[in-house]
């Protein structure tokens, strides 16, 4: 197994774990953690892709942008979670299902 294979496998496995977390977890902060796990997988994928195409620095550059962007998303998400806790008194996404139908 070359390092690239490892990275590609890792990317997919982390993506899968994150997706599963999104389906199974009910705590909003843990949902955001699951999102972050997915992002880690994609960072690996981007760098590996750069490496495969012989432009590792290009891959790195993209990965940096991705990390920044998704950190921002996580921060906004956490801010929302804090407000949710204030207004709903809970972080359970089950409580967050008043809008339906």
């Amino acid at each position, binding site marked *: *197994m070359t390092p690239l294979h490892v990275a*590609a496998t890792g990317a*997919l496995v982390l993506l899968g*774990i994150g997706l599963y977390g999104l389906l199974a977890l009910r*705590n909003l902060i843990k949902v955001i*953690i699951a999102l*972050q796990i997915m992002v880690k997988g994609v960072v690996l994928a981007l*760098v590996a892709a750069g490496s*495969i195409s012989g432009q590792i620095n290009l891959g790195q550059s993209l990965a940096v942008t991705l*990390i920044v962007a998704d950190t921002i998303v996580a921060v906004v998400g956490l801010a929302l979670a804090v407000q949710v806790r204030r207004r709903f008194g809970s972080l359970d996404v089950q409580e967050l299902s008043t809008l339906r139908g």
Partner: protein
Amino acid sequence: MLQVSLLIAAVFCAIQAIRTPRLLVAAIWLAGVSALVAVLLYLLGAHEVAVIELSVGAGLVTVLFVFAISLAGEETTRLPAIIPRPLAIGLVAASILLLAWMLAPTDSPPAAADESSFTVVVWQERSADTLAQIVLIFAGVLGVLGILAEERPVEKPGVEAVQPGDAPADKLPEQVGFEVESSLEREHA
């Protein structure tokens, strides 16, 4: 071999982050994933991004999580999943395996040597991305400020319209939810 064991460790951390009922613990497992991914990145030759992942992913994000958890409150109860577990596992596994199966035949060629320098790529060649990133950060900061902003005391009475369903913030959450629903019901009727 080193990579494989690092990967296994990272996957273990990720699973733990999902499984543990405690939020703080989960955040720390996430930091573990981040650190291990950073090492994997370093081994791939992506030195700069490894450093950034370590400092932002394992450092900054963890701090933010801890901060948020302290604001929102720790929660330790394990909530039963809403989606039946076999269905969830099946959906995810099927998608990921299909992806993997279709990507598998690709023979990864040996990584060619990259002559460019990271700084040049980031700051010159892809400066448009970097500029857009600034916009993104600005928007994100405004977003966080906006979402977390405390209610300003009403300066001019009567400017802000009062509506029946608007519950004061200090009410018990259960009551808030109830009120919203009952006002919805009124509309339906």
